[in-house]
């Protein structure tokens, strides 16, 4: 049930009102304000990336290349990929929800290194500026994967600037990960042992492990690419004795674990939402916690499945294939955990729950189709087709973004002290779910039938499915726009929300909405296991 606070005594300043003025935001060290700064920037990039999606789907509504030529189309999908993966998905949940909620969930006043947190945001913005520069100068056309030697020697796009933008952005991610790791180790409230932590925290800890160990490798790889292109030094160009497959190895060593950076926080959000809206502690807490870490660790062992059709050795391909099947197991475990949590729970279908349930279904489809791709034989047939595109959009949009939307809707009252329209939010969730499936399900069929990715033309017999997909994309876009509108509207006109409108048990709900700058009046002392739902109020020292 949603409770609204009584027309209350609002003399107490919260983190939004305590200091005023632009500089108090730009020089803040408050993790909550930094989260808001990220929210604005990340959402802006989402819409820019979405714009490219619109252009792609517009072109693909007809078989002929009648909207743009192939070079321009190459730039569309490259910019779409770079912006969506690196400037939207990777930071989305950790930098916004993680930053805002994680310290509160562990009863801390802030992250371990608040100024480094702000620095992370600035670094992200600088990386973003480079990317915008690339965009405005004419774009880059190599695909977000930057495969050599096209990217190092033949492309006419702004490869160096794009590479530098991503390189810089990487440091933002590394510092955020570092901050989270130290925070979880050293800033927990008294009594908060590891196995009393909310699973959202476990998810972010695992994510941070990946950020810290993987991102430096993509950084140095792009650095070498920039050197090669700028100074014609042949690291990856066969003309100089370089090995393009080495580039692919180094690129995917990060970029595969990167997908787990995108999904693990989302899984953490989903666990929190399902628990709250079933008023039931998660089934198999320990399994969920350990599977998060297992995904982070095993996720580093499978990158070769992106190289199955390269000259990577068949032997290595076999090893990577087996490992890729194994890495699916911890994810599958979570799906069982979530559904078991819902069983005999007291399910409330509020908006965040709609997104969480949607996540479970769509992520399962995305994950299972990953197994098709993990098979060496099938991969030869499916690679570089629309099957791959459908697979990763199911996990990244149907999975990660649904989790993001669910999380935004779940923590919105906490962050801003207001509640959005329940009707419109549920309508938007359903529009998004339907639009998403209409966009991407046809793409599985297209890929299976052989339509290649990254082409702006296709045989006429594929048109019906493409038109369905483009129609779906417009519905999906409408859904996101509606969400944007009512959320922004709620900031000014939404009903005031109380400290715990959803009846959740984690620590952030035991303090005011919006929180005061120090988060808690008195540092909480934790005496119970996580997710203790009892008939009386759970008592915490607040």
């Amino acid at each position, binding site marked *: 049930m949603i409770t609204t606070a009584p027309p209350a005594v609002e003399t107490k300043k919260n983190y939004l009102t305590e200091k005023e003025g632009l500089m108090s935001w730009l020089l803040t060290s408050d993790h909550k304000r930094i989260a808001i700064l990220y929210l604005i920037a990340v959402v802006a990039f989402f819409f820019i990336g979405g714009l490219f999606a619109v252009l792609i789907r517009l072109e693909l509504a007809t078989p002929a290349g009648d909207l743009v030529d192939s070079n321009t189309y190459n730039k569309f999908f490259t910019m779409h990929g770079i912006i969506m993966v690196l400037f939207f998905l990777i930071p989305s949940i950790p930098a916004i929800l993680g930053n805002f909620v994680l310290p509160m969930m562990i009863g801390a006043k802030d992250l371990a290194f608040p100024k480094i947190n702000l620095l992370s945001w600035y670094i992200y913005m600088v990386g973003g500026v480079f990317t915008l520069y690339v965009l405005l100068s004419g774009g880059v056309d190599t695909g977000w994967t930057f495969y050599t030697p096209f990217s190092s020697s033949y492309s006419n796009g702004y490869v160096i600037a794009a590479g530098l933008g991503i390189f810089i952005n990487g440091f933002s991610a590394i510092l955020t990960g570092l901050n989270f790791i130290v925070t979880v180790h050293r800033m927990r409230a008294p009594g908060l042992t590891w196995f009393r932590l909310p699973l959202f925290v476990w998810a972010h800890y695992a994510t941070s492990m990946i950020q810290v*160990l993987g991102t430096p*490798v993509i950084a140095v790889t792009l650095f070498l690419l920039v050197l090669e292109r700028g100074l014609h*030094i042949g690291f990856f160009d066969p003309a100089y004795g370089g090995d393009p497959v080495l580039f692919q190895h180094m690129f995917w060593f990060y970029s595969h674990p990167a997908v787990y950076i995108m999904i693990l926080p989302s899984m953490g959000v989903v666990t929190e939402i399902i628990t709250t809206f079933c008023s039931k502690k998660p089934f198999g807490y320990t399994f969920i916690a350990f599977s998060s870490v297992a995904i982070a660790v095993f996720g580093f062992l499978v990158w070769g499945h992106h190289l199955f059709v390269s000259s990577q050795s068949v032997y290595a391909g076999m090893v990577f294939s087996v490992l890729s099947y194994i890495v699916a197991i911890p994810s599958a475990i979570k799906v069982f955990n979530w559904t078991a949590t819902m069983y005999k729970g007291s399910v409330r279908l509020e908006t965040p729950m709609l997104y969480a349930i949607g996540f479970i279904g769509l992520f399962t489809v995305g994950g299972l189709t990953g197994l098709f791709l993990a098979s060496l034989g099938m991969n030869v047939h499916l690679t570089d087709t629309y099957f791959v595109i459908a697979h990763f959009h199911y996990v990244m949009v149907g999975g990660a973004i649904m989790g993001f939307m669910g999380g935004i809707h779940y923590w919105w009252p906490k962050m801003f002290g207001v509640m959005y329209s329940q009707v419109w939010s549920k309508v938007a969730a359903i529009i998004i779910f339907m639009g998403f499936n209409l966009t991407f399900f046809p793409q599985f069929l297209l890929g299976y039938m052989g339509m290649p990715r990254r082409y702006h033309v296709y045989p006429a017999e594929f048109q019906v499915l493409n038109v369905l997909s483009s129609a779906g994309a417009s519905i999906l876009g409408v859904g996101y726009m509606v969400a944007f509108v009512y959320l922004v509207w709620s900031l000014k006109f939404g009903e005031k929300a109380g400290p715990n409108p959803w009846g959740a048990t984690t620590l952030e709900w035991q303090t005011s909405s919006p929180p005061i700058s120090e988060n808690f009046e008195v540092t909480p002392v934790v005496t119970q296991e996580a997710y203790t739902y009892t008939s009386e109020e759970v008592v915490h020292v607040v």
Partner: protein
Amino acid sequence: MSSTATPLDQTPVARHHFENLEQQKDASTIGMWVFLITEIMFFGGLFMAYFAYRQAYPAAFASASNKTNLLIGAFNTTVLICSSLTMALAVRAAATGKKNLIVLFLILTLLLGGAFLGVKAYEYHDKWVHHEVPGAHFECEGCQDAGHTPLFFALYFGMTGLHASHMIIGFFILVYLIRQAGKGAYTPKWFTPVEMFGLYWHFVDIVWIFLFPLLYLIDRSGAAK
């Protein structure tokens, strides 16, 4: 680095989001170690490229490696190890409250680091003069499999260059630390910046401990200089 520094006679206080100084020191230490492992992976990418290409073109790498000066490399390695010793002694001086020794050892570290970079600059210049810098005028005189030797030199400059840039950053931090130490900011109760920088400096030393054999010591038998 942190505004916790206070004159010698005052007790340092933790930043507001920490419960106590112990927690702050601990967080800093873990933070620095986590940063260092990101550096391991960062340099690691270059080591990856090195191993891949050395395995592919052993003759080219051997010939090219022999173009480096073994004695100068060994000398430079020694210099850097000395600077690690002086850095460790600087941290120890801070822990034992010997303000003048902190300054002395930090200055020695700076000088030794400067010597290393000076020698490196000489080596780079030497390579430039002998056309051993990859690019339009590259030439590896008397090298086997000469077509692939630019890869070695690209990695040589890339790896030692990245290492040197880490040392240059260290330089600036050392200057700051020397100034602060001179003002008595570091006491046995709180000398975290010195300690943290020590970890960084030792890490940079460790990178060189690997770079030296990998770049200078390939197939030196019969080619001792």
